[in-house]
């Protein structure tokens, strides 16, 4: 960030590289999904995976396993990854905060907290409504963190927001655990501690899909304005952008994405931190490319993490959030060391 030539180089968008990343990523994602479906307690050939998807036969046990357990799980992982990654990309672009991530800023913890309350008070509530609670909780978490951040004497600096996010996450996490213990709903502790996609069912995917589709389309539509916002609020206003509206719409999309993802996987962090940075490094600073590429790479990351979570120590599953944190933490430390200023 010294010479102006160095400054302009990474700001360029790189359409060709973006297209390569997009298609390469999709190819890798398909491969990872295939592998993930075939790997498990009962090993299934890739060919069987193919026939189970494209010519399903209910009499074959392997087909049943794939249809009822493995397919929803891997699709859930892919969706969750896309959600977290796009949410992170939007937040980083809108607030110019390189440390923005729905996990780090307390949004995931908020969603998980409302889920705990929801499971405790209305255990038989259909998922259709449960997801709404998750959105509400995401808003609660974000509200508290930004509230505390803006009340601070030092203002809304990226580092201060992350500290507030950590404290809010600790508080809401403790409350969720308390509620889970009190109402004895904490059978699957991993969900509260480190997340897992093992419980994904078709109904989750069905309910999530329309929300996600709408949110993703919204994100893509917003992407041009986000690019301008990421150059600075003044620049954006000067170019005739209605920054307030964009920020509000962007935030709503973030809350929907993070809320939906948490309702399936639990409060998993760092996906939204790592993927957008990686994408920006690969395809440049144009959010019209960053957002689609984040969708693909985010899905890929979580599908691979889920695969890894099952491969490390079979038949036990390693919590997926713990695995992702092992990648995310060093990355975060690197970003924090740079001072949290550059994006």
């Amino acid at each position: 960030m010294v010479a102006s030539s160095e400054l302009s180089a990474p700001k360029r968008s790189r359409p060709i590289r973006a297209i390569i990343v997009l298609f390469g990523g999709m190819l890798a994602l398909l491969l990872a999904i295939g592998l993930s479906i075939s790997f498990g307690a009962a090993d299934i050939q890739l060919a069987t995976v193919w026939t189970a998807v494209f010519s399903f036969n209910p009499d074959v046990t392997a087909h049943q396993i794939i249809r009822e357990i493995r397919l929803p799980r891997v699709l859930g992982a892919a969706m969750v990854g896309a959600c977290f990654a796009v949410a992170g990309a939007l937040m980083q672009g809108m607030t110019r905060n390189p440390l923005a991530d729905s996990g780090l800023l307390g949004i995931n913890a908020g969603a998980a907290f409302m889920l705990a309350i929801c499971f405790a008070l209305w255990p038989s509530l259909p998922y259709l409504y449960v997801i709404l609670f998750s959105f509400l909780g995401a808003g609660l978490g974000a509200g508290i963190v930004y509230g505390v951040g803006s009340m601070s004497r030092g203002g809304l600096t990226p580092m201060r927001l992350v500290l507030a996010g950590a404290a809010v996450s600790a508080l809401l996490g403790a409350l969720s655990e308390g509620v889970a213990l009190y109402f004895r709903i904490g059978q699957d502790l991993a969900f509260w501690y480190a997340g897992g996609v093992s419980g994904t069912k078709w109904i989750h995917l069905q309910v999530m899909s329309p929300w996600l589709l709408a949110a993703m389309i919204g994100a893509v539509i917003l992407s041009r304005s986000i690019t301008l916002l990421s150059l600075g609020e003044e620049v954006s206003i000067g170019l005739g952008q209605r920054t307030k509206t964009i920020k509000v719409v962007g935030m709503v999309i973030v809350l929907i994405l993070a809320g939906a993802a948490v309702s399936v996987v639990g409060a998993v962090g760092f996906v939204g931190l790592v993927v957008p940075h990686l994408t920006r490094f690969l395809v440049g600073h144009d959010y019209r490319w960053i957002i689609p590429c984040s969708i693909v790479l985010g899905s890929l990351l979580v599908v691979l993490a889920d695969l890894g979570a099952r491969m490390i120590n079979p038949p036990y599953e390693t919590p997926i959030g713990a695995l992702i944190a092992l990648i995310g933490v060093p990355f975060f430390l690197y970003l924090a060391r740079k001072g949290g200023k550059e994006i």
Partner: protein
Amino acid sequence: MKLSMTQAQRKVRTKNLWVLTSLVILIVIVFMISMNTGYIKLSPLEVVRTLFGLGTAQQALVLFDFRLPRIVLSILVGMGLAVSGCVLQGVTRNALADPGILGINAGAGLVVMLFISFFPSTTDTPVFMLPILAFTGAGATAAIIYVLSYKRHEGISPIRLLLTGIAVAAGISSATIILTLRLSPENYQFVATWLAGSIWGSNWKFVLSLLPWLIVLLLFVYLKANVLNVLNLGDLTAIGLGASIEKERRILLAAAVGLAGASVSVSGGIGFVGLVGPHLARQLVGARHQVLIPTAALTGALLVLVADTIGRWILQPSEIPAGIVVAIIGAPYFLYLLSRLQD
């Protein structure tokens, strides 16, 4: 003039004495309540009678073998963590320092978990090893955090130190989950409750293994109170007053790390005690470490004792880990302090 000074001093001394006495009385009251909290009900009179050896065999068993060691441990752990936080705040001159937030507890926890994985707590464990092992884990973590947050020319900024600590704590917790799940899946539940901060070593041998460390380290820190006072005035003043600050700082840091490590080796990873305890104490008696350290020890003990009692009382016969209760009190306090912190 001189006379009024001594009068004022005497007034302060009486006030401090009052504060300390009230804290002790409060601890005794909570102690009695806590003795009475649990599945088997005992009236305060029965508690007193049993303490003096006049109760039935069953009452004696409940009190001496189950409740008393746990209560004593809560008090000791609270003291250790609060004084550790007090020293950390004094040495780093960072109002938000706390062994839990800075990741020192997590480092100790990782080593303790590995130890428990190899020597399950059901067998005859060499318990006295725990504080030493925890100290090495905590010390290594503290060193890592110090190196990672140190920047040439800038030194260590309070906020970067905290961010690094939080991230390292997240990473170590994840590593702990993954490692223990791999080494001994049946211990996963234990790790989960450890992370939530339960007083787990409720047994006299844990009390005995912790006690010598606490006595030595608490006394040592108390004798260094004047050094802490001088360090608090700032580096230049401290040098001017003839303190060899780097050496003193390192020794005191080691003592703080030792206190935190030893404490969490027999309890869970309880955060925020080292933050709330000293701050409350400072409100009560001011910043002179000769009074501050004992007061912080008492407030910390009271805090953990109250948290553990609430956790056991609210959800009989099962319990909510003390760490969760403390986090619900401590996290908002952290947010409050954060909003007042200046860069």
